[in-house]
C-alpha cells in the first residue's frame, strides 16, 4: 500500500511545518490531487499529535529548588569573570587576523624563493615538465619554507602553526572564524582567488579543510550554504585548477596541479627541502632513482556506489601481504613515502593477526565468517562494516604431506644481502618446519634453468644445505624454462591429497623471454587446475614486477608475500607456514547485498583489483582468492546510511522512462543493513558452496568497538592517507597513531608497535 509515499520524509516535515512556504504550498497542491497522499498525511498527523501530547505530559518534572538557587548564584559570580574573558578574546581575534593576513601577504615572497630553488636543480626533464616541476617544487618547497621563514614573522604568529591556532580558535570563538570562514573554506569561489598570489592561501587551508572535511568546520553552527556536497566540491576545484594551471607561468602563483599529477609529484616531493627530486607527472613509473624500476599497477580507488543503482558488491578474497612489507620497507628503511600505487589497503589491513575465532573442528565450513557494523571514525555521518573470515587452523602434525619445489631466481641482481642470502635463510626456516615425509626440490633459473636439488625428503638437511650453499647469483633471468622445470619436478613427485606447491622466490622481473606474461599465466592456471599450486615470495626492491607476481600467485591458488627481513621470513615461513602451504578453501568470493532502506551508498575500501562482476559470484569458472590454514581476511566497507546527505552520491544516469524505480521487498523492512554471501570451493573441489547471513547494525560507537576493529580501521585509514585518497575523511596520521596505540592489545609479535612507527614516520614525511 502506498509504500513509496510513506518513504517520503517530506510528509512529516510538512506536518511539523519544516517546509519552506513554497515547498509547503506545493505539497498542499499534491495533497489535493492525490487522495492516497492525503490519507498518509492524515495518519502521520494523527501519530504526531498523539506523540506531542505524550511528550508534553511526560515533561513534568522541574529542577528542585536548591539547584535553582545554585544557578542564580552562579550567574552572579560569573559577571566579574566575564569581563576579563572578553578582553582575552579580543586579543586572540587580533592575533588570528594578523596570522591570516601575514599568511596571505607573505605568499608571493615565498613563491619567488621556491621557484628559484626548483629551477636551479637542473633536472634532465622536458621543458614542459619544467613548468609543472615549478608547480610541484613550489608547492612542496613552499610548505617547507613556510616552516623556516615563519620564524621571521614579527608578530610571532607562525603561519604554519597559525593554522593550528585557528583550529584552537574554533573551539573558543566560533563567530571569529566566521570572518575568515569564507576566505578559508574550500569551495568554488576559490578558483578566482587561486590565480593571483594567493596560492599559499589556497594550499594551506587545504590542509585545514582536509582535516575537517565533514561539514564546514569553520562554521559548524551555520547552515551549510553550499548545496554542493563534498564530492561535488572536489570536482569543481579540479576543474577550476585545470583552468588556472593552463596559463600559469612560473612567476605567478603555482596553482595546485591536478589531483592525479599532484599524487605522483607528492610521492617524491614529500621530503622537506628536497626540491630537486622532481619528476615528470602522469607517468606510471616512479623514476627518482634510476635503479628503482618498481612497477606497480595503477589502481583507481573504489568510489561510493548508490545502493539503488548497485545493490550488490562482489569481490574476491585476498590474503596477500606483500604491499605491507613494501610500504614498511619504504617508510622505515628507505625513509620515504611509498608510491601511491604500491599501497594496497586491503593487504595492509590483512597483514595483522586479529583475534578471530577459527571454526570448530566439526564445523560445516573450513572457515568462520562474521560481520559487524560500527561507527566510521573518519566521517561522523558514516558507518563502517567489517567482514572477518578466519580459516581453520591446522596443527603441524595434521598438515598434509608436502611436496615443495623452490623455484629460485639466481640472476646477478639477487646478489645483495636482502635477496639471495635472505632466500636461503627463509628456506632453512621453512625446512625446519617440515618432516621426513615432506619433500623439497630446488630449481634455479638464471641464464639457463637447472635442477639444483632433486626432490629430497626434508629431513636430509645436509644434502639440502649443500645444494643451497652452491647457489650463487649470476647470469640473467630467464624464468620461462625454470618454471616449466619446476612444475615438472612437482608433477614427478606428486603426493595425492597432499600439498603440492611451487614456491617462486624472486626479486623482480620474471622474464619469460618472448612468450610474455599471458602464456605464463595460462600455464600457472593449468597447473593449478591439476592441483599444483604456486606461491610467490618477493625479495628486494629493485626490479619488482609487483602486478605480475600478484597475478600469477592469484591464478596459482597461492599467496604473495614480500620478505624484506629475517623477521618477515619468520612470519611467513614459520609462524604462518601452514597458511602459506595449505589452502583450506579456494576461489573464495564475497557478495554483499545492501538494504536500500538502511544504507544509501557504500564504498569498499581496497580490493580494487579483486572486484568481480556480480555475475561472477555464481560462476564457478571464475577464479578467485584462496584462504590458507589459519589465515584471516578482513574487508571494510564505508557505509552512508539512508537519509544522510541526500545527494552525496548523485545518480549517474537519468531516471528510466519505461520503468519505475525498484520496489522494496518485505525483507527491506527489517533491521538488516546487509546480507553477506560467500562462495568457496574445497581445495580439491570444483563446485562452490554457499554461506549466507544477514548483518544488523547495533549502532555500536567507535569507542565501544573491540580493539581489533579499531586497529583495522586505523590501518585502513593509514592506507587511504598514503594513497592520498579523497575518501580519507577527517582523519590524519595522528589519529591513526592514537587509535593504533590504544588498540594494540598485547602485541606479542611487536608488529603493531612497528605499525605505529610506520605511521609516525609517514606523519613526519607528510609534513
Amino acid at each position: 500500500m502506498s509504500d513509496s509515499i510513506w518513504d517520503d520524509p517530506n510528509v512529516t516535515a510538512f506536518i511539523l511545518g519544516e517546509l519552506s512556504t513554497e515547498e509547503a504550498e506545493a505539497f498542499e497542491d499534491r495533497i489535493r490531487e492525490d487522495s492516497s497522499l492525503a490519507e498518509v498525511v492524515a495518519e502521520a498527523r494523527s501519530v504526531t499529535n498523539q506523540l506531542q501530547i505524550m511528550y508534553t505530559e511526560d515533561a513534568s518534572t522541574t529542577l528542585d529548588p536548591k539547584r535553582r538557587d545554585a544557578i542564580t548564584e552562579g550567574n552572579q559570580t560569573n559577571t566579574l569573570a566575564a569581563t576579563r574573558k572578553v578582553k582575552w578574546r579580543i586579543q586572540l581575534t587580533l592575533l588570528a587576523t594578523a596570522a591570516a593576513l601575514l599568511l596571505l601577504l607573505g605568499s608571493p615572497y615565498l613563491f619567488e624563493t621556491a621557484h628559484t630553488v626548483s629551477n636551479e636543480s637542473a633536472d634532465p626533464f622536458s621543458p614542459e615538465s619544467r613548468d609543472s616541476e615549478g608547480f610541484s617544487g613550489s608547492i612542496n618547497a613552499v610548505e617547507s619554507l613556510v616552516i623556516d621563514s615563519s620564524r621571521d614573522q614579527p608578530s610571532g604568529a607562525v603561519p604554519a602553526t597559525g593554522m593550528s591556532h585557528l583550529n584552537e580558535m574554533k573551539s573558543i570563538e566560533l563567530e571569529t572564524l566566521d570572518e575568515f570562514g569564507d576566505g578559508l573554506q574550500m569551495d568554488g569561489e576559490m578558483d578566482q582567488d587561486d590565480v593571483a598570489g594567493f596560492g599559499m592561501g589556497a594550499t594551506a587551508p587545504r590542509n585545514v579543510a582536509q582535516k575537517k572535511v565533514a561539514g564546514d568546520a569553520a562554521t559548524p553552527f551555520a547552515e551549510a550554504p553550499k548545496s554542493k556536497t563534498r564530492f561535488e566540491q572536489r570536482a569543481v576545484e579540479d576543474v577550476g585548477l585545470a583552468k588556472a594551471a593552463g596559463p600559469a607561468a612560473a612567476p605567478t602563483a603555482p596553482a595546485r596541479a591536478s589531483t592525479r599529477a599532484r599524487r605522483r609529484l607528492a610521492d617524491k616531493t614529500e621530503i622537506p627541502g628536497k626540491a630537486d627530486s622532481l619528476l615528470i607527472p602522469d607517468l606510471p613509473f616512479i623514476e627518482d632513482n634510476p635503479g628503482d624500476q618498481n612497477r606497480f599497477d595503477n589502481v583507481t580507488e573504489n568510489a561510493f556506489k548508490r545502493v539503488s543503482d548497485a545493490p550488490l558488491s562482489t569481490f574476491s578474497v585476498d590474503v596477500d601481504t606483500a604491499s605491507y612489507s613494501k610500504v614498511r620497507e619504504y617508510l622505515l628503511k628507505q625513509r620515504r613515502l611509498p608510491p601511491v600505487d604500491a599501497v594496497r589497503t586491503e593487504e595492509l589491513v590483512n597483514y595483522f593477526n586479529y583475534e578471530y575465532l577459527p571454526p570448530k573442528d566439526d564445523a560445516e565450513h573450513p572457515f568462520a565468517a562474521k560481520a559487524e557494523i560500527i561507527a566510521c571514525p573518519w566521517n561522523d555521518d558514516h558507518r563502517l562494516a567489517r567482514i572477518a573470515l578466519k580459516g581453520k587452523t591446522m596443527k603441524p602434525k595434521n598438515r598434509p604431506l608436502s611436496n615443495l619445489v623452490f623455484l629460485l631466481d639466481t640472476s646477478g641482481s639477487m646478489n645483495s644481502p636482502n635477496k639471495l642470502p635472505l632466500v636461503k635463510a627463509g628456506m632453512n626456516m621453512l625446512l625446519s618446519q617440515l618432516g621426513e615425509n615432506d619433500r623439497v626440490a630446488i630449481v634455479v633459473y638464471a641464464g639457463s634453468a637447472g635442477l639444483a636439488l632433486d626432490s629430497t625428503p626434508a629431513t636430509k638437511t645436509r644434502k639440502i644445505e649443500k645444494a643451497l650453499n652452491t647457489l650463487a647469483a649470476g647470469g640473467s633471468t630467464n624464468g620461462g624454462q625454470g618454471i616449466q622445470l619446476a612444475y615438472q619436478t612437482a608433477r614427478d613427485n606428486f603426493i595425492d591429497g597432499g600439498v603440492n606447491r611451487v614456491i617462486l622466490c624472486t626479486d623482480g622481473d620474471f622474464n619469460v623471454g618472448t612468450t610474455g606474461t599471458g602464456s605464463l599465466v595460462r600455464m600457472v592456471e593449468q597447473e593449478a587446475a591439476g592441483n599444483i599450486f604456486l606461491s610467490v615470495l618477493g625479495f628486494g626492491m629493485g626490479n619488482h614486477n609487483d602486478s605480475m607476481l600478484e597475478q600469477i600467485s592469484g591464478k596459482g591458488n597461492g599467496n604473495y608475500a614480500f620478505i624484506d627481513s629475517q623477521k618477515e621470513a619468520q612470519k611467513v615461513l614459520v609462524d604462518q607456514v601452514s597458511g602459506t602451504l595449505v589452502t583450506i578453501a579456494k576461489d573464495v568470493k564475497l557478495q554483499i547485498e545492501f538494504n536500500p532502506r538502511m544504507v544509501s551508498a557504500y564504498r569498499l575500501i581496497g580490493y580494487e583489483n579483486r572486484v568481480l562482476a556480480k555475475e561472477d559470484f555464481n560462476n564457478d569458472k571464475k577464479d578467485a582468492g584462496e584462504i590458507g590454514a589459519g589465515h584471516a581476511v578482513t574487508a571494510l566497507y564505508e557505509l552512508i546510511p539512508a537519509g544522510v546527505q541526500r545527494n552525496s552520491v548523485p545518480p549517474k544516469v537519468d531516471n528510466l522512462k519505461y520503468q519505475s524505480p525498484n520496489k522494496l521487498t518485505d525483507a527491506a523492512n527489517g533491521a538488516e543493513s546487509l546480507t553477506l554471501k560467500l562462495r568457496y570451493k574445497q581445495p580439491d573441489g570444483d563446485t562452490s558452496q554457499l554461506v549466507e547471513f544477514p548483518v544488523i547494525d547495533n549502532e555500536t560507537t567507535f569507542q565501544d568497538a573491540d580493539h581489533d576493529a579499531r586497529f583495522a580501521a586505523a590501518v585502513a585509514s593509514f592506507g587511504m592517507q598514503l594513497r592520498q585518497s579523497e575518501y580519507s575523511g577527517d582523519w590524519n596520521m595522528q589519529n591513526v597513531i592514537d587509535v593504533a596505540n590504544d588498540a594494540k592489545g598485547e602485541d606479542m609479535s611487536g608488529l603493531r608497535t612497528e605499525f605505529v612507527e610506520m605511521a609516525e614516520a609517514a606523519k613526519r614525511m607528510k609534513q
Partner: protein
Amino acid sequence: MTESGSTWPADAINALVDRYERPLLAYAGRMLGGDWQGAQDAVQETFLRLCREDPAKIESRVAAWLFSVCRTRVIDMQRTNHSTPFDSSQIAVADNSPDVSESVINAEDRDQLYDLVEKLTNRQQEVLRLRLQAGLSYREIAEVTGLTIGNVGFHLHAAVRNLRDTLAVS
C-alpha cells in the same frame, strides 16, 4: 565590551530556566535511562554553563545550545557511570504534572504509545524528543545531535512511519 553585553540579567536566566527545565530534564532523564537525579545534575550544570556564556553569542539559538550542552554532559556521564539503576524512590521533586482528568489521551493509550516509542532506535527517540518535547527545529536538532538536517527529517519520518505501522496493526 560593556558589562551588560557579557552577562545574563537575572530575570533572563529565570525565564530561560522556566521555559526549558522540563524538556531538558525529560531529555536528560530518558537518555540516562531513568536516572532522574543524574538528570537534575546534568540540567543544573547546563544552566550554570549558560550563565558563563556571553548572551550576545547565543541568544538567537539558546534552545539548541542548551540541548547540545546537556547532551554532551549526559554522554560524559554515561561514560563514567555505566549502570545507574532506576530507583523511583529517588525522585524527590515536586510533581507538577497536570491533573489526570485533564489528560487528552487516556492512560492506556499513552502507555502503549510509550512502549512503542521505546522500541524505536535510540536515534529516532532522541530526535522525536528534541522535536516534540523541546520544540527544536530540524536545524537546531541537527546542531545538537551532529546529524545533517536531511538526516534529522529522515529519522523523524522513519519514527512516525514505524509507529504508524505498529499502531495500524494493533
